[in-house]
């Protein structure tokens, strides 16, 4: 299994190295999108990566497949690949996909005053969507909502039926809002959720954690390269302890982020995937701020320019850490869970994770 994973990641890495460059990043600034790059990604089968083999997928373990999100983050891939390849898996039972479709996620922070009302054979969806990543470019939006019976439903909305109001993230990527406007849905668009699996909010948080872990890994590499090349006072700044100590501290944060995200990726099929995802989003998000700060400090003025590539990673870190729940949101969930367990019960719970 790891052979297949490594092969796919290897090919994907080469594709990203080829395609992700200043032009592609610029194409996604101000809310733009590169159809051409998306086609290349879909053609390689990356969007279908988590489908079963008989559905045209690679049949990878979820945890193995999710490494692709980390790799996409490492390359600051300006495409909605992560949400799409998870989305494809989640809708596989009801929508026939070609692999070119763009599927995006609306977590609970993206949904305002929404509700789901039965209407004849189907449903009516009421409410607002806000700051949906890649919204205006999407074919489908996935979201979870409770129906009147209190049980959660997973809803697939065709994105071209929405009027998107454009906005962008700090990285310039599309983050668009739309009114649901009593949207009529067929029965097929609304199904029960898998009660033990991650919610859409949790999937989103997990993907952003992995993407951040990757982007931080790359930011550290860039900072180390810069420190070895940039000379001041007659020698590379890498020689100065003031630089070394900061980069070592950053490396610790990057390592923690990688470990937390990887652990959460392995937990999606476990008993309480939400807890490990909460840990990951909280821990990685916290590390991201510190890592971005050190990377910029080491790069000094050069890293503060548009010309340098560092900001394509750090602006994504700053925007991703806010999406699908900020650190306090997830820390609160962890705190609630642990305080309900109590001091004595905490260890049996934690050691079982």
């Amino acid at each position: 299994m790891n052979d297949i994973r490594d092969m796919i990641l290897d090919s994907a890495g080469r594709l990203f190295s080829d395609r992700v460059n200043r032009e592609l990043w610029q194409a996604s600034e101000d809310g733009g999108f590169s159809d051409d790059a998306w086609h290349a990604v879909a053609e390689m089968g990356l969007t279908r990566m988590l489908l079963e083999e008989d559905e045209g997928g690679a049949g990878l373990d979820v945890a193995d497949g999710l490494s692709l999100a980390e790799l996409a983050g490492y390359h600051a891939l300006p495409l909605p690949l992560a949400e799409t390849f998870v989305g494809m898996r989640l809708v596989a039972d009801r929508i026939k996909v070609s692999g070119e479709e763009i599927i995006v996620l609306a977590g609970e922070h993206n949904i305002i005053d929404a509700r789901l009302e039965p209407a004849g054979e189907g449903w009516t969806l009421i409410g607002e969507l806000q700051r949906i990543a890649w919204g205006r470019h999407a074919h489908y939006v996935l979201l979870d909502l409770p129906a009147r019976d209190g049980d959660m439903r997973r809803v697939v909305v065709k994105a071209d039926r929405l009027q998107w109001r454009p906005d962008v993230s700090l990285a310039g990527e599309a983050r668009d809002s739309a009114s649901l406007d009593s949207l009529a849905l067929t029965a097929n668009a609304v199904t029960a959720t898998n009660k033990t699996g991650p919610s859409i909010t949790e999937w989103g948080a997990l993907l952003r954690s992995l993407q951040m872990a990757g982007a931080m890994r790359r930011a550290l590499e860039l900072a180390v390269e810069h420190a070895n090349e940039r000379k001041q006072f007659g020698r590379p700044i890498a020689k100065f302890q003031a630089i070394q100590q900061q980069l070592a501290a950053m490396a610790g944060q990057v390592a923690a982020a990688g470990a937390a995200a990887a652990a959460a990726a392995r937990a999606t099929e476990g008993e309480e995937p939400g807890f490990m995802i909460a840990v990951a989003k909280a821990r990685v998000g916290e590390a991201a701020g510190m890592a971005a700060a050190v990377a910029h400090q080491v790069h000094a003025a050069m890293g503060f320019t548009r010309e340098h590539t560092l900001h394509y990673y750090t602006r994504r870190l700053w925007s991703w850490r806010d999406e699908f729940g900020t650190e306090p949101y997830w820390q609160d969930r962890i705190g609630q869970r642990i305080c309900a367990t109590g001091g004595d019960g905490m260890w049996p719970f934690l050691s079982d994770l």
Partner: protein
Amino acid sequence: MNSFRFDPVELPDSALSFRHAARSFLADELAHERFTPHRNSWGTYDADFSRRCGQHGFIGMHWPQRYGGHEASALDRFVVIEEMLAAGAPMGAHWVADRQSGNNILANGSEAAREKILPQIAAGECFFAIGMSEPNSGSDLASVGMRATRADGGWVLNGTKIWTSNAHQAHYLIALARSEPLGEDRHAGLTQFIVNLRESDGITTRPIYNLYNSHDFNEVFFDDVFVADDMLIGDEGRGWQMVTGELAFERSGPDRILSTYQLLRQLVDAVAKKAEGRDLIAVGRLISHLVTLRRMSLSVAGMLERGESPELEAAAVKDVGTAFEQEIPEIARLLVDVAPSLDNGNPYAEALAKGMLSAPCFSIRGGTREILRGIIAKGLGLR
């Protein structure tokens, strides 16, 4: 650039059995009020507790049976150790012997030393001290001044060791000494010797009280102390390589994460009572660190089990882990307004006082933060 690798590790079934065994043992200890969790750290010395650990097979777990071990895996040991730490058990007496000295003897000692010492350690009846630091050689370990000179059937040691925890109570100390004159390579010519603290002539031990007036450290003076040939560890002159190898064991364990766990435990109960928004958030943040660090530490244990040399990863665990341990008292005091006290009977106040007063040494012992970050920086390829 070199990247750190923290591959995920799954615990084997055997580890889960050991967890169960350790929990039963600890529950029984607590039921008999044999220790008070919130007053302990892994440095707390309790020879009786250590003997009971030995009887239950919790020391030298991964050593061969012929040396008193139980042929368990590094992950099995990890689980037992974390259970002990989480329970606040007083492991200080056998701690050094179990964590590093025994492993060192097993890997590099003479057959005579193995046969004589390892079974005693595993029985929880033989304790070790570390003899690396000297008054003028703290972070700069290679500058040791202790001299080892040839004598009939062995060596004679002269010099001084310092910060040796439990030297006044331990049976043995492993001394790092210069066995050849200092040459071009500062790291060559160092040798490790097993010194019998109780039976050797020429040893004087001076207590050094720490800032909360507890006797843990010592200064140990060596005046013509004889060590027999079979008490050398490894080849003469190769001590440096062994010392650095040992550090991966010393730096990556759950003891670099859980030093203030007893306070965290008290804090969770205190915060649970009020359950206010930002307090829950602060606790949740700490838990996100703890869960992540445990994964990292486990991952290093997996690498050690596979025979890899995760020096960098171990340094990272200690750097991030000790920062976490140090943060707990600083955060606890902001969340719950209870004045710290070393002995007023309030478990929260006592755990807070102990945590606050001992925190400074977390980022000093076993390699200062600055030294660790220097190692990491080198590992990152900064040149």
